[in-house]
C-alpha cells in the first residue's frame, strides 16, 4: 500500500507532425488506500498518465513516487502494481488459473502451493472458482472481467490501476460491477487509480476524481466538489447529464445585472465583489432551473425568464425540457407537473443561489452554486486546481 505522488509529470510523443504533449506538468498526490478516478474526454491524457504510473510509458519529465520510493525509471515489474485493462488482456492460451497465477509466478518467489492457495482464495472471493480450469475463450464477458480483476487482486499490489475496465460490459452488468468494484476496493483498501470517460462511474466510484483535459489537470476533488464547485467551465460542462447550461451574458455593474438579449438577471449578491469585466459566462445546472406556473406569486420575480419550449424529452421520472433563450438553448429537468409541449411559452426560474459564473475568456470559475458538498475534504481540495 502506498501513496502515489505525481510530480510535474510530462509526457511527450514524437510523431511525424512534431511532438504531441500528452500530459503537461501534472501534479497529484493520491493517498494510501484512496480510490481516485481519472476522467476526461478521450485524448485528455488520462490513460497516458495511468500508463506512466504503471511504467508502461516512459516519462518525458517529472517524477513518480510510490510512498518514499522514486519509481520514475523503474520497469513495470519492479513497481508492484496490478492493472486491469479495458479488453481484459487475459492470456488466451492459459486457463483462468494460470492467468491469475502468472503474475505471482513471475514477480514473486512464492512456492507453487502458496500461489495455488492464493489463486483459489481470490477466486473464491470473486465467485469464479468454478471457472478456474477454463480458458478465456470459454468465458462470457462478465466472467472474463472477473478473472481479469482476480488476476489483479491476487497479486496484492501496492497500487491498482484500472483502464476503463467496465466499458466493454453491457449496461446492466456495468452497474452491478461498479458497486462490486467499489466494495472490493474498500475491503482491500488498496490505492486505486481508475480511468474512465464515463462520468457516472467517475461520480459514483471515486473518493476523489481527477478531471483532465488536453493533457492538463483541470480539477481534483471529491465528486460532489467537482460537481458543485467546478473549478472552471470545462469541469462544469463535463460533469453532469444533461450538462450544465451556459449562457453568455453582459455585465452591467451600474445596474447590477447580467443580461443578454432575452433576459436580465441581477448579479448574485455573493458574487458582486468578484465580478469584473464586461463579459461572463453564466452556468446553471438543468436540475436547478424550474418551470414556473404562478409567475405573479413567485418569490424571486426578478429571476424569472420568459422562454419558448423547443422540444421535450420525457424520461419517465423526469422530463428534459429544451428551451430557447435568446437564440441559445437551455435545458431544464423538470418533474413535468405542467405538461409543457414544444411551442409553449413558459417562465423559468433561475435561482440566484445556484448560478455559476465563469470568466468568459479563461473559463475560470468566479462564483459557484451554494449546494452543500461532502464536508470531509473540502478544506484541502477547495480553491482552484493547480493548472500551472
Amino acid at each position, binding site marked *: 500500500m502506498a501513496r502515489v505522488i505525481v510530480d510535474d509529470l510530462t509526457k511527450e510523443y*514524437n510523431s511525424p507532425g512534431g511532438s504531441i504533449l500528452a500530459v503537461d506538468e501534472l501534479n497529484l498526490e493520491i493517498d494510501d488506500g484512496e480510490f481516485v478516478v481519472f476522467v476526461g474526454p478521450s485524448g485528455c491524457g488520462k490513460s497516458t498518465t495511468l*500508463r506512466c504510473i*504503471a*511504467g*508502461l510509458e516512459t516519462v518525458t519529465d517529472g517524477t513518480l513516487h510510490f510512498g518514499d520510493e522514486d519509481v520514475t525509471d523503474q*520497469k*513495470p*515489474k519492479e513497481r508492484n*502494481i*496490478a*492493472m486491469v*485493462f*479495458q*479488453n481484459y*488482456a*487475459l*492470456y*488466451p*492460451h492459459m486457463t483462468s488459473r494460470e492467468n491469475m497465477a*502468472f*503474475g505471482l*509466478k*513471475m*514477480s*514473486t518467489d512464492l512456492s507453487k502451493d502458496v500461489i495455488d492457495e492464493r489463486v483459489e482464495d481470490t477466486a473464491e472471493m470473486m465467485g469464479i472458482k468454478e471457472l478456474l480450469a477454463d480458458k478465456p475463450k470459454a468465458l462470457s464477458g462478465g466472467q472474463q472481467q472477473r478473472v481479469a480483476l482476480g*488476476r489483479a487482486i491476487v*497479486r496484492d499490489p501496492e497500487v491498482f*490501476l484500472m*483502464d476503463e475496465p467496465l466499458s466493454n460490459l453491457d449496461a446492466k452488468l456495468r452497474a452491478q460491477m461498479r458497486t462490486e468494484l467499489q466494495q472490493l476496493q474498500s475491503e482491500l483498501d488498496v490505492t486505486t487509480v481508475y480511468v474512465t470517460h464515463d462520468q457516472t462511474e467517475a461520480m459514483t466510484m471515486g473518493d476523489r476524481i481527477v478531471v483532465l483535459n488536453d493533457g492538463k489537470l483541470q480539477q481534483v476533488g471529491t465528486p460532489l466538489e467537482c460537481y458543485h464547485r467546478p473549478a472552471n467551465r470545462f469541469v462544469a460542462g463535463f460533469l453532469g447529464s444533461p450538462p450544465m447550461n451556459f449562457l453568455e451574458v453582459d455585465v452591467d455593474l451600474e445596474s447590477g445585472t447580467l443580461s443578454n438579449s432575452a433576459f436580465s438577471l441581477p448579479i448574485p449578491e455573493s458574487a458582486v465583489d468578484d465580478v469584473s469585466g464586461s463579459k461572463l459566462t453564466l452556468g446553471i445546472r438543468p436540475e436547478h432551473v424550474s418551470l414556473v406556473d404562478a409567475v405573479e406569486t413567485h418569490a424571486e420575480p426578478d429571476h424569472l425568464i420568459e422562454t419558448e419550449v423547443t422540444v421535450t424529452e420525457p424520461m419517465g421520472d423526469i422530463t428534459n425540457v429544451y428551451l430557447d433563450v435568446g437564440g441559445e438553448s437551455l435545458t431544464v429537468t423538470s418533474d413535468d407537473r405542467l405538461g409543457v409541449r414544444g411551442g409553449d411559452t413558459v417562465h423559468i426560474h433561475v435561482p440566484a443561489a445556484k448560478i455559476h459564473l465563469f470568466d468568459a475568456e479563461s473559463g475560470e470559475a468566479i462564483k459557484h452554486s451554494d449546494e452543500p458538498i461532502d464536508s470531509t475534504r473540502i478544506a484541502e481540495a477547495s480553491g482552484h486546481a493547480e493548472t500551472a
Partner: protein
Amino acid sequence: MIPEELQLSSATKDRLFGLLVKGVLGTLLLYALFPIYWMVISSFRTRTEITAADPQLLPVELGQIPAIVQDPALLLEILHYENYITMWARFPVLDYFINSLIIATTTTVFALVVGCLGGYAFSKYRFPGKGGVGGALLGTQMIPGILILLPMYLLFIWIQDTIGFPMTNTYHGIIFVYTTFTVPVAIWMLRGFFDTIPDSVEEAARVDGCSRIQALVRIILPMAAPGIAATGMFVFLVAFNEVLFASILASGDVTPFAIGIQSFETQTTAYWGEMMAASTVATAPILLLFVLFQKPIVEGLTEGSVKQ
C-alpha cells in the same frame, strides 16, 4: 427483356451456380493434383514406358483390373517398383534428403527466432528509421540472387582464409545464408500476426512481472502460434527448394535434395523412373507433415483478415 416464363427461377439459378462451383473446383483440383499423381505413376514405370510416345493415364490397363482385384500380387508384376530399390544405389538420395531436412529445419528455427524479434519490433514500436528498415526489408526481395552470389562466395572464402572458420560446403554456411534470405519475409509476415494481438496483453504481462522479452516469449509468441506455423512453413519451403546458392555454397557432404535430385538426369541418361521414385519419397513426408499440421498453418495463413 426475356419473357418471364423463360427466366430462370432463383432456385434453378442457385442450382446451376452450385454446379458451376463444383465444376470449377473439380477442374482446379485436377490441375493442382495431376502433376503429383503423374509423379507417383511415373515412379512405377520403366524408362521405356516413360519415354514411350503414347503415355498411359492409368498405371494399369482397364482390362487388368478384375484380375488385379482377385490377385493383388499381380500389381507387383505390372508396376515397375524396382525404381524404389535401385534409386538408393544410383545416387545417395537419402543423404540429399536428410541434408535438406537439416538445412531447411534449422533455417526455419533460426529465421523464426530472428523474424519474431524483428517482426515484433515492427509491429509494436515506433522508432527512428523504421521506414528505412521497412524499405530495406522489401528491397531485399528484389535483389537478383545472381548479383550477390559471387561476392557472397568470395566473402565466405575470405572468412575461411582469414579466420580459418569453414563456411562453404557446410551446414552452418548455407543455413546462415538461407536464414538471412528468409528473415525479411518472416519479419514481414510475423509483423502482421503480431498486429492482431492487442498491445494490452503485452502490457498486462509486463505489469505481471515480465520483462519485455519475457512478455514476448511467454505471452505473445504462444498467441501468435498459427502465424508462426504459417511463416515457418513458408521459410521451410524456401530453404528446401533453393538451387542457385545451394549449387555453389552447399556441395559435397551437404548437397541438398533440390540439387541432388537433378543428378538423375545425367549427361547421357535420364533416370526418370528413379527420379520420380525419389521425388515421391521426398514429397510424401512433406505433404504428410503439411496435412497433419495444416490447421494452424492454414489458420495462420488466413489469420488477421478475420480481425481486420
